[in-house]
């Protein structure tokens, strides 16, 4: 088949809203964009373990401790599902990790902000996971099969996280004055960075058009940002939290909330590596990866020493009939 025919076939698959799978032909640009997007997403989940992970040992009740520990474990799991999806495109997870640590690949800049109090745990669940869900639900229909399937699983778990975060905030807002002040302070610090999670404004986002044509992106940045604001304002009202935007108000004509201008200069600074926690987040990831090298090497060495002889020619046949197959 010629490249033209392959391209037409690819285009038809996209146009009919069907999935592209790992063994299908795809344009180079699509593959590269997909790898970048999925790896970045995976890195974000792993780095995202840090701001909340800090509070596990410090959680003020055993129930909150269990919830937070399970949530951070989920995030590790999400990172793993996404790395798997990226690997179907021919990259290697260890290589992606090295690129993250070297600064070659990025992660969501939201995690470059510090988590200063326990209330941050709740606000991260409410706002950061809330924004992530807004971004991610459309990705469940991503044109690339493994990514869409990973997103379905992740979305199920993430909505649970958001509810847990919000529930913590509700409890704190019905609590002491100090708890209420903590929640308001955390909301003040995380609101604008959450809006930045949707990326630059549409008029400053050159990739959007191509990504939408490829079925990689289903909505523009501004569309998703607006949707998030519309969903979140009533949630803030129900909590009794004031969002730190004097320009926030319902616009009857548009049928949406108007909101103030995001500080895009700050956004660019943080993306460039100049945020409050950039060095710390990467430093922690590097330290874990490097100090774990001898452990991984030991496991590999042990496996090599004890490799079963039946690895190449003699391998046990895969059971044809799954119902008769062996249980573990």
């Amino acid at each position, binding site marked *: 088949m010629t490249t033209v025919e392959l391209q037409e076939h690819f285009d038809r698959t996209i146009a009919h809203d069907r999935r592209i799978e790992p063994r299908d032909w795809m344009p180079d640009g699509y593959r590269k964009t997909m790898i970048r997007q999925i790896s970045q997403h995976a890195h974000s989940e792993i780095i995202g373990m840090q701001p909340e992970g800090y509070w596990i040992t410090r959680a003020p009740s*055993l129930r909150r401790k269990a919830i937070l*520990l*399970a949530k951070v474990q989920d995030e590790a799991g999400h990172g793993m599902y996404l790395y798997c999806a990226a690997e179907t495109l021919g990259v290697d997870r260890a290589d992606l990790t090295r690129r993250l640590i070297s600064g070659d690949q990025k992660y969501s800049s939201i995690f470059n902000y510090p988590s200063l109090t326990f209330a941050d745990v709740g606000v991260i669940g409410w706002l950061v996971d809330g924004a992530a869900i807004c971004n991610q639900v459309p990705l469940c229909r991503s044109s690339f099969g493994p990514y869409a399937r990973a997103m379905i699983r992740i979305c199920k778990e993430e909505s649970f996280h958001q509810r847990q975060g919000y529930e913590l905030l509700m409890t704190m807002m019905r609590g002491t004055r100090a708890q209420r002040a903590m929640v308001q302070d955390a909301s003040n610090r995380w609101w604008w960075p959450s809006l930045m999670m949707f990326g630059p404004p549409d008029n400053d986002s050159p990739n959007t058009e191509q990504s939408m044509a490829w079925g990689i992106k289903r909505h523009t940045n501004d569309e998703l940002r607006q949707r998030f604001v519309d969903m979140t304002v009533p949630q803030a009202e129900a909590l009794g939290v004031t969002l730190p935007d004097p320009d926030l108000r319902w616009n009857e004509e548009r049928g949406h909330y108007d909101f103030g201008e995001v500080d895009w200069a700050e956004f660019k600074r943080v993306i460039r590596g100049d945020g409050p926690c950039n060095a710390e987040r990467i430093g922690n990831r590097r330290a*874990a990866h490097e100090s774990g090298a001898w*452990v991984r090497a030991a496991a590999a060495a042990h496996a090599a020493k004890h490799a079963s002889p039946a690895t190449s020619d003699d391998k046990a046949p895969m059971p044809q009939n799954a119902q008769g197959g062996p249980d573990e």
Partner: protein
Amino acid sequence: MDTYDAYQAITDVTEDQRWAFGAGFDDPLSGIDTTIPDGISADDLAAYCEMLGDDALLMSHRLQQWVGHAPELEEEAALANIALDLLGQARFLLARAGTVDGSGRTEDDYAFLRGPAQFRHVRLVEIVDSDFGFAMARLLVFSTWRLAVLDRLRASRDPVLAAIADKGVKEMTYHRDYAAQWVIRLGDGTEFSHQRVQAGLDHVAPFVGELFTDSDVETRLAAAGVGVRPSETHAEFDAALDAVLSAATLGCPAWSASGGATRTAGHRDTLTRLLAELQSVARAHPGATW
């Protein structure tokens, strides 16, 4: 293929099943007869629950400190699972202590409001991790010992302890297996890993004797068919460790002798620092609900 098929059966679980035990407000002891068995003192039973609970609480704490620092992502998931299991055991046990001693204290009162002198754990769970080799050596010793104790505790005349032990045995079996696999991989891996895990075992050795030293509380409760004398698990422990260390090509360290003081907490540096981390937020907001 329906893309939902793969996950339906596994993710089709209630919140309770996924989150160690319950993220909701269910009473963990609901349905179980909570009457104190005759022939024992309420104080002894409460103290025993605290001992077993504190061991699990602090061991879980040490494992939680690995979150974000594990040698591989898959180990993050595994260590978090183990930490969650132990945290669940601690919650059941500390809750039980409060209902038994008449104080009505909650699991959180025990975890966050007791001072260093009031904790009743074994020193093994308190010492600070040095590296992954140490962590696996300590987890192997802890899990093997605790599994043997809980296995016998399933026959307790106290239905609550029996139920906790029953659930705990499945968990401890998995934890012991996880730690054993790692000790074997590290022992029979590279030269460097062999040294590290051997050093870890040597570091843990001085704290093993205490595990098999019977306290007065345990002796009394065992006589009444409610508790377990840990000294009775020593032979099983030795056999299990010998098997693992031999497969790991590691030398068995000289475990310390039992019979000395046991479970004497106090204002030790390690414990004070551990509790500062564990309790700081809770103590900063007295009376607050979370």
